[in-house]
């Protein structure tokens, strides 16, 4: 799993560079995201604009990440393509993660 990350104030922006968040990638995704959290990041914007496909294992990894963040942390998702967004809606995950079309809006909402 490849990410590109940068900070804007206290907010960590993580851009997923792989186009699939599936069973093959889920463990690595979770490990790296938990690494960011262990490193002191509690406000994270996940830019998924390069992601074409998420399966239930990928969603499970995202649920695990939000559990690791705890009640004081925040994880927002931005840039999800239409089919991926529909997957989030189908599994009600759009109620778990704040979803934004644009990264700037996600950062603004968290600031």
């Amino acid at each position: 799993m490849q990410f590109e990350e940068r900070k804007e104030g206290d907010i960590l922006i993580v851009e997923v560079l792989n186009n699939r968040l599936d069973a093959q990638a889920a463990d690595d995704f979770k490990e790296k995201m938990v690494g960011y959290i262990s490193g002191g990041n509690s406000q994270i914007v996940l830019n998924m604009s390069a992601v074409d496909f998420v399966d239930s294992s990928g969603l499970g990894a995202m649920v695990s990440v939000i559990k690791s963040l705890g009640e004081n942390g925040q994880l927002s998702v931005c840039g999800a393509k239409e089919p991926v967004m529909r997957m989030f809606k189908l599994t009600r995950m759009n109620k778990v993660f704040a979803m934004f079309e644009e990264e700037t809006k996600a950062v603004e909402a968290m600031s």
Partner: protein
Amino acid sequence: MKQRKIVFAIESDMKNVSLIGMTINKLCSLIPFSEVEAYQVELCVVEAVNNCIEHAYGSQRGHQVEVVFALENDKLVVDVCDTGKSMDEKAIEKADVAQLNIDPDNFHTMAEQGRGLPIMKQIMDTITYNTNDDGKNCLTLIKNI
């Protein structure tokens, strides 16, 4: 009955599943399905193949997962087959789309697994599961066109 059919197979390794997924997605453009519908069919097949690898073969490599993609007059039929441990025959019946419901204010209780079959039930029109006399298990996913 007119039918067009292709059979393909992978070795039971998660790194091969995307090959099946991307092929299914492309084949769906023959129907033609929308981008969202093609994704959803791909998702169901990927979930079924993942289940074969994880549960039927216990995540062991070296086994075969076979996928049969068939276009009939008014429906798409995809069989996902393995020769490993059979699934509980009531698993499909027990899987409930209500399992996808969540309490967003209480995310600590959210399951990290177990959404595969409910997702398939939500998207597909019919799902059946059979084991033949040779021990071959086939999950059949049907979507009306």
